């Protein structure tokens, strides 16, 4: 199995080397990925809830007789 690699740039020499990730780095990468996925799911849920609330509010305003332009101007 090919191990993922990283580019390491030594700023004191300007030399770049490609090295395989350590087991610890791979474990950290997997933990970070899980945390990112959890964060993304929360963001998506928040965005969906916000969009639904906005649509509901606009529907109620339209039912009161406001035009689309009037609603957009609010």
């Amino acid at each position, binding site marked *: 199995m090919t191990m993922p690699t990283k*580019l390491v*740039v030594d700023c004191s020499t300007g030399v770049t080397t490609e090295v395989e*990730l350590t087991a610890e*780095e791979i474990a950290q*990468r997997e933990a*970070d990925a899980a945390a990112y996925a959890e964060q993304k799911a929360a963001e998506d849920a928040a965005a969906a809830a916000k969009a639904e609330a906005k649509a509901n509010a606009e529907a109620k305003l339209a039912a009161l007789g406001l035009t689309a332009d009037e609603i957009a101007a609010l």
Partner: protein
Amino acid sequence: MALTYVAIATTTVGSGGSANIEFTSIPQTYTDLLLVSSLRGSQNGATLAGLALNGSTASFTGRYIYGDGQSTVSGSDGGNVVNYATGISVTANAFTNAYSYIPNYTSSNYKSISSDVVLEQNQSTNAMFLSATLWSNTAAITSLSLNVSAGTFAQYSTATLYGIKATV
């Protein structure tokens, strides 16, 4: 760039891709650091890129706003996400371009990182991401790494680390 900007080091990802781009032995002779990157990933969709400072991904907190022309999301998080990599499902050769600025990186105070990211996709839903991040650690920054959350950074992705001097 003004004369106060000095390119400390730059690198370009090769044909095999790379999971991380790491700058080590960062000189302690500048006032601030600026990381400029152009990143494309190996996954279909855009992937997040996290920052590690001195090898650590812990003690990061921040606030962000993300918009793609259709919706916006903002919030706070305990993560170290400061960047993205454009996915392969969008136009070939499109990269996410970003700046991350780190003032006073040698101080013994906590370090702030402000990032300005555009996920160029050559589509109507190009996205922007702005973040303000705090690394609650008092150590001077001697190494810095961008870590993609899945897959690898694709070939021709680049990163350049600049040192900023207060005066020429």
